[in-house]
């Protein structure tokens, strides 16, 4: 800690802090999270709690190994957000060990091996998710149809525990996510309109469909995202360029061959597009710092997401796209900068005005 404030100004500071920034992001996530917990019931609640607990425990362990001040750094809220976002990206009925392993991998390998807060190159939550997805593809793609809490077919508290801790096989209840379903059908050679038959775009917007917690309820996530922009926690550049690129590319391909490529709107409301655009891609640490750089970065994620969803093996590509663009962030920051006052874009001084 350097305490040098009394030597250089400014001697007044905005009432802001990392903790406040993180808290605002959590507030923005809250409506969608509460809705999803309601939709997927007790197992989802267990999953969120376990992921958070594992992440915080891993953070505490790393911090004390590194000899950092625990209250100061645990209190910044960054680890809670990491665990939260990770939980949002998991299948809601995933077993306990997915939650624990994911939390530990995200925090230890995603964050602390790089030096902790602010030092990591890759988005920790996405490191956790991708590690799980590659290692355990089966439980990581086992989705269930929504069963709202206290409604018919929703597991009770005890049943929920047995689902989370593996005592109860819910194979029979599993359902495919929309992206997964359409992709499988297309791969079988089924025409698009048939593959998408029964896909209710409105249900996708609201979130009453099978999927990860954060993959559903696009509307509430969008609301949270707009709140973050209004409170200036994030700027519009990444969400707009990412969703814009995804939409534009999907629309273009749909126009080229409507029988094989779903349209732009479908890509925006399925999968983790909205969560990714407002909450994952905008992760402060791993995204570029300049507005023009953020435009490049967001567009890159949008394009990569489309490419992975359409031509690669996985039905959803946000996590991979974000990690790939994370790796590009240092380069983008190096090459895309604002123009310095009094200089040209290339850094040469402007020419003095000649009197007419």
């Amino acid at each position, binding site marked *: *800690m*350097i*305490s*040098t*404030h*009394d*030597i*250089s*100004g*400014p*001697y*007044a*500071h*905005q*009432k*802001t*802090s*990392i903790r*406040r*920034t993180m808290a605002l992001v959590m507030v923005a996530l809250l409506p969608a999270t509460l809705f999803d917990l309601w939709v997927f019931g007790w197992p989802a609640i267990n999953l969120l709690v376990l992921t958070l607990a594992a992440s915080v425990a891993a953070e505490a362990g790393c911090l004390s190994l590194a000899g950092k001040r625990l209250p*100061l750094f645990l209190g*910044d809220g*960054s680890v809670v957000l990491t665990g939260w976002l990770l939980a949002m990206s998991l299948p809601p009925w995933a077993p306990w060990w997915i939650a624990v392993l994911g939390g530990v991998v995200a925090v230890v390998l995603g964050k602390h091996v790089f030096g*902790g*807060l*602010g*030092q990591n190159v890759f988005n920790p939550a996405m490191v956790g998710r991708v590690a799980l997805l590659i290692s355990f593809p089966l439980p990581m793609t086992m989705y269930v149809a929504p069963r709202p809490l206290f409604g018919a077919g929703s597991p009770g508290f005890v049943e929920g525990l047995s689902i989370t801790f593996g005592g109860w096989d819910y194979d029979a209840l599993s359902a495919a996510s929309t992206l997964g379903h359409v992709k499988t059908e297309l791969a079988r050679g089924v025409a698009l309109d048939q593959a998408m038959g029964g896909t209710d775009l409105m249900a996708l917007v609201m979130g009453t469909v099978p999927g990860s917690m954060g993959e559903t309820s696009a509307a509430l996530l969008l609301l949270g995202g707009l709140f973050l922009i209004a409170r200036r926690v994030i*700027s519009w550049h990444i969400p707009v360029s990412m969703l814009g690129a995804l939409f534009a590319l999907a629309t273009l391909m749909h126009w080229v061959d409507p029988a094989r490529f779903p349209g732009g709107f479908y890509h925006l409301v399925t999968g983790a597009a909205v969560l990714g655009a407002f909450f994952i891609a905008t992760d*402060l*640490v*791993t*995204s*570029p*710092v*300049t*507005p023009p750089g*953020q435009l490049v970065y967001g567009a890159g994620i949008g394009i990569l997401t489309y490419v992975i969803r359409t031509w690669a093996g996985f039905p959803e590509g946000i996590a991979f796209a974000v990690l790939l663009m994370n790796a590009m962030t240092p380069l983008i*920051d190096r090459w895309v*900068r*604002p*123009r*310095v*006052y*009094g*200089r040209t874009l290339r*850094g040469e*001084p*402007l*020419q*003095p*005005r000649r*009197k007419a």
Partner: protein
Amino acid sequence: MKLFRIRGGIHPEYRKEMTAGKAIEPLPMPALLHLPLQQHIGAPAVPVVAAGDRVRKGQLLARARGEISAPVHASTSGRIVDILPFAAPHPSGLAQPTILLEPDGLDEWTDLPPPLDPFSVPREEIARRVAECGVVGMGGGTFPSAVKLDLGRKFPIDVLVINGAECEPYLTCDDRLMRECTAEVVDGVRIMARALGVERIVIAIEKNKPEALAAMAAESAAFAEVEVVPLPTRYPMGSERHLVTALTGRETPARKLTADIGVVVHNIATARAVHHAVRLGRPLISRVVTVSGRAVREQKNLDVRLGTLVSQLIEHCGGLVEPPVHYLSGGPMMGQAMPGREVPVVKGTSGILALTAAEAHERDTMPCIRCGSCVTACPCGLVPVEMAQMIRHEKLDAAARIGLLDCLNCGSCAYVCPAHIPLVQYFNYGKGRLAALQRDRRKQEMTKRLAEQRAERVERLDRERKAKMAAAKKAAAEKQEGGA
């Protein structure tokens, strides 16, 4: 008038309401005045009085030395007690030569130079008088004003901008001057335009000073060449370069002056000092100071004789209600910490602030989370986060390549930083190190050149000696031959 967009900036808590409504109040005569020989940018003044001398108010105490310098005058009549090193209002607290003047209470004027009619004398006369009266930039820059009034001879200047933005939080001294001394300020402005040979004058005032705007607009209505422009309230609107861009759309090239693009900027208080110098022959011996901050019992705008100790200003304001975390000279954004209260008010002291811990809102520095707030806030288009990182790793040349030397030190980045990183501290360190390195480099080059020159000289002398010897030998041989 259409304003041009400038990038970045912040909206700090202005806290001007503590003093904006307080009329300027004269401070009672102190028992002893401390007048530093250097209250300006440039060479320190040279004393022309000695201990024991009796002086009258406005009398020259120290003359300017060289082109960029300013004289110091007696703030009242009295006796010179001594000339000795005394703490300067600078964070270092280093002592600098200071004239101690004991007032006799008579406050009796010396024989002042005759008033000038600025619109009939030659233009150079005005700058000469301003120099003679020791007027410097009173916004805090303290650059000798006469030098800036002479720029019209070197550059084709077409606009004079008067900076009434007063964008620093807390400060209200210019606001009060514009309201209470409107006629003097506007007259000073017109005199400066005449000295520069400029046809167009823009007086720019932030919209958070509606009374000042109205007063100045009413006063200058009679003069077609003067335009009063309301500015959006945003820090650092009063940065010279950014102000000019906002008003004219012209951008000062890097490492150049606003004069290079045809504009000269002067401050409100400076305009009034010019009026006093030209119309009345009065040197700069007092100024208006905003005393504020919640640690002070009663915040005020005071008319203070230069050389008065800060402790006396605070005492006049009812003392302190709680121990401040900082004593500042100037505003909280770009002002400087003072080593304590026992330092004098000088020509550039626009404010004296005693800030409480709650006001300063200082927190432990956390790691950077690369949020980019500093990039958005920077009015110069710099990437503060990256510059600080480079400076941390002593990569000073790399930091300079991405604009370290284009930084204004406005502090917007450090103000908004959620990790409370002292970015300006890094930049000051970096700039200081770069300057030192450059000095070293120059010194090394000089040493190398001298060494090379010496080697060359020695070699040349050697060669010449040998040649001479050879010639002598040859001559001798020839002589011998000839003799034989």
